[in-house]
């Protein structure tokens, strides 16, 4: 949304300056072109500048496909604005395409009158062929509906770095900063944060530092001086809660949350895992923080990872694991052991496109059924889902709170979108964090491993405690005593008790909140990473006067106690999910509500407009 227009002098000429409420930029190019870095720099600069930001990297599925091919395209999208940003945005305002393949795979997402910046040097015959273009799209007129800026970035970058003494290849690696410079000029961003970053990063390699500095500036001045740019944009700082901020991806936030939970309870954190996209970064982040008594165990497979977590929980650690769909499938059996032994542990599943190996680098929400049902026998477990990258921090703490208070494994369903997406995170005051306490019984007269407290939790008696020696395992246990027990009535009692315990968790969680009016025509019920898109869409529809509200489940099993009641206050319920309707199924079964599913299974998050359109399809686009 344009919020202002004025004119200013840029170098020797006049340019129009358009003030925007928010904007969406995407850098795309070959995997080796440094697009992730360019995007990150623009994000950081914008955040420091005071904008709200939201980002979404899009990695190619192959490690490093041949240069110039479609499979090798890497992208990084960010939105920044003067208002709250709930997603990295639908359609892009400014697209930077470093080669034909990048253009081909991304041009669809550019707004009809959007700005396209291309590195025209890369539009060679060979590259065009690799991208599957028969003719050069810069020449065919097919891009006419966009504002196209053809810049010979390769040449200009080489020129800028010519005195650096670096090899051609190293010089070539700087060109992302030329493009970044152009974008900086376009949005009137300060270069300092990036210049600082360059000198910190390349302190020991002054030639590289200098080359990057020069080409960044060259890009910036190219924007300033060249006549081709006649418009510049500004995006004012957002009204953001005061405080210190930091940008976190969902995976980083999850890692910090795990560390915080353990530290708050004065415990060591054990993290047993096996690398898998898109969960591995949690391990990478945790492995760096050994000084926080973080014990990472890179296991031989997911089964070992899960089994080690069960063992570590038995021994008294705050134990967690992280994986993605196929890994969760492998963990099923050992999770059942965690449930039978009623030990506290946290299982993070960063969902990706399935089934089977599926679309490993893409996002999806199709493991809810697996989380709830994916084990043999009646094996109930608490299931949570964070709703934004930053919420991963809070949900990790919440997961450990429940795990320890109720002595149960807790599953956290993150997804690829949250895991890699980033948003500003207001650094919390440590004293404001939940208090977590883990208590271990000491020897007394009446210790019984399966005697329960009011929450139905059994005692967490840990090896090393004199006098509390006991044996646990995967066979059915006798009530209270905890010996192996085949008694039919006892089995039924234990099965029902384990379920009841999970249901009881609902007593400790906040009620489901409604965004918008608490009664009306349509409620959108969501869960997990779709929060931003759903909320933004509902906000827009509300602004149009439609009778629509939304509610978002962070707790999926058990659900907040008032869930059924909230649903009953709306005529229709729409459940948007990145799957074929898994929450839909649960809601229909639990509440016998004829909810409607809105399903997208494309390895991509919802666009705000998709949900908006769906709302209008249901309600009509006229306000009530």
């Amino acid at each position, binding site marked *: 949304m344009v919020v202002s227009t004025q004119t200013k002098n840029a170098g020797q000429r006049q340019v129009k300056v358009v003030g925007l409420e928010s904007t969406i930029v995407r850098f795309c190019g070959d995997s080796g072109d440094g697009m992730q870095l360019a995007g990150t720099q623009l994000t950081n600069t914008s955040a420091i500048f005071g904008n709200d930001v939201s980002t979404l990297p899009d990695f190619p599925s192959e490690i490093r496909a041949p240069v110039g091919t479609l499979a090798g395209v890497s992208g990084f999208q960010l939105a920044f604005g003067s208002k709250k940003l709930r997603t990295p945005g639908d359609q892009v305002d400014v697209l930077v395409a470093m080669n034909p393949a990048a253009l081909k795979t991304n041009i669809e997402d550019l707004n009809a009158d959007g700005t396209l910046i291309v590195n025209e040097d890369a539009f060679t015959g060979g590259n065009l062929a690799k991208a599957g273009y028969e003719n050069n799209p810069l020449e065919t007129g097919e891009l006419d509906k966009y504002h196209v800026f053809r810049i010979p970035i390769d040449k200009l970058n080489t020129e800028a770095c010519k005195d650096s003494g670096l090899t051609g290849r190293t010089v070539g690696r700087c060109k992302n900063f030329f493009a970044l410079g152009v974008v900086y000029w376009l949005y009137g961003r300060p270069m300092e944060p990036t210049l600082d970053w360059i000198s910190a990063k390349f302190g020991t390699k002054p030639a590289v530092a200098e080359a990057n500095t020069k080409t960044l500036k060259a890009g910036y001045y190219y924007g300033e001086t060249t006549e081709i740019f006649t418009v510049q944009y500004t995006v004012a700082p957002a009204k953001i809660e005061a405080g210190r901020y*930091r940008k976190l991806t969902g995976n980083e936030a999850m890692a910090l949350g795990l560390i915080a939970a353990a530290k708050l309870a004065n415990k060591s954190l054990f993290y047993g895992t096996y690398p898998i996209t898109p969960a591995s970064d949690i391990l990478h982040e945790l492995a760096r923080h050994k000084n926080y008594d973080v014990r990472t165990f890179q296991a*031989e497979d997911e089964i070992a*990872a899960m089994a080690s*977590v069960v063992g570590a929980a038995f*021994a008294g650690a705050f134990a967690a694991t992280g994986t993605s769909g196929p890994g969760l499938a492998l963990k099923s*059996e050992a999770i059942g052991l965690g449930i039978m032994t009623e030990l506290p542990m946290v299982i993070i599943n960063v969902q990706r496109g399935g089934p089977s190996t599926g679309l490993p680098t893409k996002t999806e929400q199709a493991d809810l059924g697996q989380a709830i049902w994916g084990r043999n026998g009646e094996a109930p477990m608490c299931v949570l889902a964070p709703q934004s990258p930053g919420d991963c921090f809070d949900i990790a703490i919440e997961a450990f709170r429940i795990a320890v208070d109720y002595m149960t494994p807790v599953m956290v369903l993150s997804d690829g979108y949250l895991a890699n997406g980033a948003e500003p995170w207001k650094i919390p005051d440590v004293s404001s964090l939940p208090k977590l306490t883990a208590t271990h019984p000491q020897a007394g007269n009446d210790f019984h491993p399966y005697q329960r407290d009011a929450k139905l939790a059994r005692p967490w008696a840990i090896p090393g405690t004199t006098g509390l020696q006991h044996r646990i*395992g995967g066979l059915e246990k006798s009530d209270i005593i905890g010996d192996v027990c085949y008694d039919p009535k006892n089995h039924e009692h234990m099965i029902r008790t384990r379920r009841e315990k999970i249901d009881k968790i609902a007593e400790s969680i906040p009620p489901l909140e409604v965004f918008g009016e608490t009664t009306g025509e349509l409620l959108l019920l969501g869960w997990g990473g779709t929060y931003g898109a759903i909320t933004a869409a509902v906000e827009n529809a509300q602004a149009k006067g439609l009778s629509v509200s939304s509610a978002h489940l962070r707790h999926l099993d058990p659900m907040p106690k008032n869930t059924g009641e909230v649903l009953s206050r709306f005529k229709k319920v729409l459940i948007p999910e990145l799957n074929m309707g898994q929450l839909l199924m649960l809601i229909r079964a639990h509440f016998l509500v004829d909810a409607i599913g809105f399903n997208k299974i494309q390895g991509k998050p919802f666009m705000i407009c998709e949900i908006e359109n769906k709302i209008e399809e249901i309600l009509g686009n006229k306000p009530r």
Partner: protein
Amino acid sequence: MCADTATVQLKAKDFGSDQDVRWCPGCGDYAILSQVKKVLSTLGVSRENTVFVSGIGCSSRFPYYMNTYGFHSIHGRAPAVATGVKVANPELDVWVVTGDGDALSIGGNHFLHAIRRNLNINILLFNNRIYGLTKGQYSPTSPFGKRTKSSPFGSVDYPLYPLSVAIGAEATFVARTIDVNVKHLAYVLERAARHKGISFVEIYQNCNIFNDGSFLYATGKDTKNDTTLYLEDNKPLVFGGDTKKGIRLNGMNPEIVELGGDVTEDDLLFHDEKLAEPSLAYLLSRMHHPEFPEPMGVFRCVERPTYEGMLVQQIDDAKKSDADASLERLFNGGDTWDVK
């Protein structure tokens, strides 16, 4: 492994739990159970610092019968559960009890990796060369051609040899003993417990229900002298009772020779548990009945820093180099900016 933390030395029976022992009468597991208790008493360890972890199988019921901490986990995963226990609390003495199916069939991968990491735990493999609990299918250690319920025409699977596998996976302590030779059993268990690092013990165990007599050659009065060879460190490899026989190296192949006449003990292969390279231990692990007497005792015992030791060392070092590991510091790491 062993820790002398108990103030009062406990007796063997103090290590027994109140549970009825539920193995078939005559099962070899009983003898092992009682020797383990005895050895724990000898070592003077405490019950509360001792943890037995098992998988699933007849043998894996073991933890129930010990008045220590115990975990009867799931099939094949005991080494992984034990890894979690040990890394979470390296002070604990952790024992894994497993069967030939549990350790080498479904659990093969965890077995390999617990061994190569040199986790400081003891793994006792009760090898009865059969799946006992599931009522008698052939296992990965069953001899070729074995007829069982699942191989009525004879198994076409070549067996694995647990010691060869362990040695192939970089084990630092490897030994073999047998249920009925209780003295030797106790000796080997104690050696295993005292070894710092992974200790792997294969225990020949008779399953008198589904595989009775599998080790008769090695236990029978008439045969055992010729079919087993008890290893002693730095001693020549001799066996055979009255007619003393020995093992001599012929190139890379062992051969049986009779002592006396030309051949003296000096000509024989000498055992050395501590060789840095495991080739001798491997060669010994290849001596199988009936071609050779089967070595009993400690094949290999070398020192190497343990997995959990180094893991915790890294943490201690990190803590030392950064005493103020506060959450504030953690949260404020990375690029931050202030909004006013």
